[in-house]
């Protein structure tokens, strides 16, 4: 049997005096979709950012697809290609077209020729339903379209796992569906995904597992139905009822 794609153990993160992650253990199996929920400031983003080392963990270990991310000998730029990341604020490059956004790393990191990169880039845009927007700049796209381009930018590199940090929370409600649709089709194609989001409906019918974090630690985890309907901890119950009221 293959090991987990993401294997984080005993992760601690301090920002100065602030202890943000307090010994987090998280494993994500191949093809698994894991949801991370928790109150603001509980360390969800920090956890994700420690996995691709955008943030340097204070201690602990992170192994992604068999690569020790914290080993100084690891070629971090090469390793990061295998870990897609999608941000709340899209972070598209405003001076490039959608296709330019998607092909940049293909050319500079994956070493593809311009023609190869464009073919792969167009295929990725096609997968997110934006083949006809390849020449548009981010400013000419809606929020939902921008986020789908951002997803295309990641999947074009054929990552082994995708990290989503609140991918829909900056979107107008009517645009959320198109992004969730893309995430659902990614899941169906077998992508391993770790998603920080409060889209409960999506979690309910797409997630294999929901992890509840509070104050830098995982409080409990389990199948969506169990976490949402019969949480074991009072803190989880309070959080769930609070987000359901919205």
């Amino acid at each position: 049997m293959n090991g987990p794609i993401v294997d984080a153990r005993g992760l601690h993160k301090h920002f100065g005096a602030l202890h943000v992650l307090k010994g987090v253990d998280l494993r994500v199996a191949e093809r698994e979709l894991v949801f991370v929920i928790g109150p603001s400031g509980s360390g969800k983003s920090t956890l994700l950012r420690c996995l691709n080392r955008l943030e340097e963990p204070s201690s602990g270990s992170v192994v992604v697809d068999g690569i020790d991310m914290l080993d100084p000998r690891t070629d971090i730029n090469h390793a990061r290609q295998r870990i897609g990341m999608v941000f709340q604020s899209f972070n598209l490059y405003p001076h490039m077209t959608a296709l330019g956004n998607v092909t940049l790393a293909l050319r500079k990191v994956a070493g593809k020729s311009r023609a190869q990169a464009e073919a792969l880039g167009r295929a990725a845009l096609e997968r997110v339903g934006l083949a006809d927007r390849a020449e548009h700049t981010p400013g000419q796209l809606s929020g939902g379209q921008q986020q789908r381009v951002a997803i295309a930018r990641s999947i074009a590199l054929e990552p082994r796992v995708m990290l989503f940090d609140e991918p829909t929370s900056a979107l107008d409600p009517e645009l959320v569906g198109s992004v969730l649709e893309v995430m659902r089709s990614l899941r169906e194609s077998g992508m391993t995904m770790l998603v920080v989001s409060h889209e409960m409906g999506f979690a309910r019918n797409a997630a294999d597992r929901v992890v509840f974090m509070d104050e830098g630690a995982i409080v409990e985890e389990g199948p969506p139905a169990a976490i949402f309907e019969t949480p074991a901890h009072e803190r989880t119950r309070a959080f769930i009822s609070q987000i359901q009221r919205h």
Partner: protein
Amino acid sequence: MSSWGRFAETFLNTKVMLKYLPDILSGVVVTIELALLIVVTGIGAGLTLALLRSLGVRPLNWLIIVIVDLFRSLPPLVVIVLIYFGLPSVNISASGFVSTWLSLAFVLMAFSEEIFWAGITSVAKGQWEAARSTGLSFGQTLMNVVLPQAFRLTIPPLTNRTIAITKGTALGTVVAVTEILGQASSAMSNSYNPSPLMMGAAAYLVLFFPVVVAARWVETRFAWKR
């Protein structure tokens, strides 16, 4: 004589102008040489310092900030005089031309470093994160993602500064550089007539007006829809 006639006789005296045209033209050549040297080395050095600063090495950054603030606070004329009269005392002699070039290049370096640095830091952190998360290195991110966005913001202040500092080539007269103003004022005192100064003014216009127009064009080229 009409009043226009008197004015023309004094300020646009054809005989005087023809006589001193070669001098003014040689001044134009010197000014162009000086200006190009100042712009290329000054902006080049400023960009280099800003890039070094982006590496985030503390002691290096302090050094850069001290140098930059020094040259931003000294009047350019003081720098020219210091280099011209100061260097010989440490047994290095610099001609008026070289002193003017170095001084104004240092001043432009200082201002352009600050402008480039402001441009680099104004690029959202998320741009770095997105690029680095796809595996781009620090340098690749800087070159492909951050600098193109930074340049767009730096072009207007940078052209303003560049034009202002390059016009400072006129300060070279103080250390006997035969640039436009130097030629014009010596022609003026030799001919007892201000017409050469009018030619000098025209020469500055011909030199700098296209630069201003070109800067506008570059600004629109670098704009993109947000």
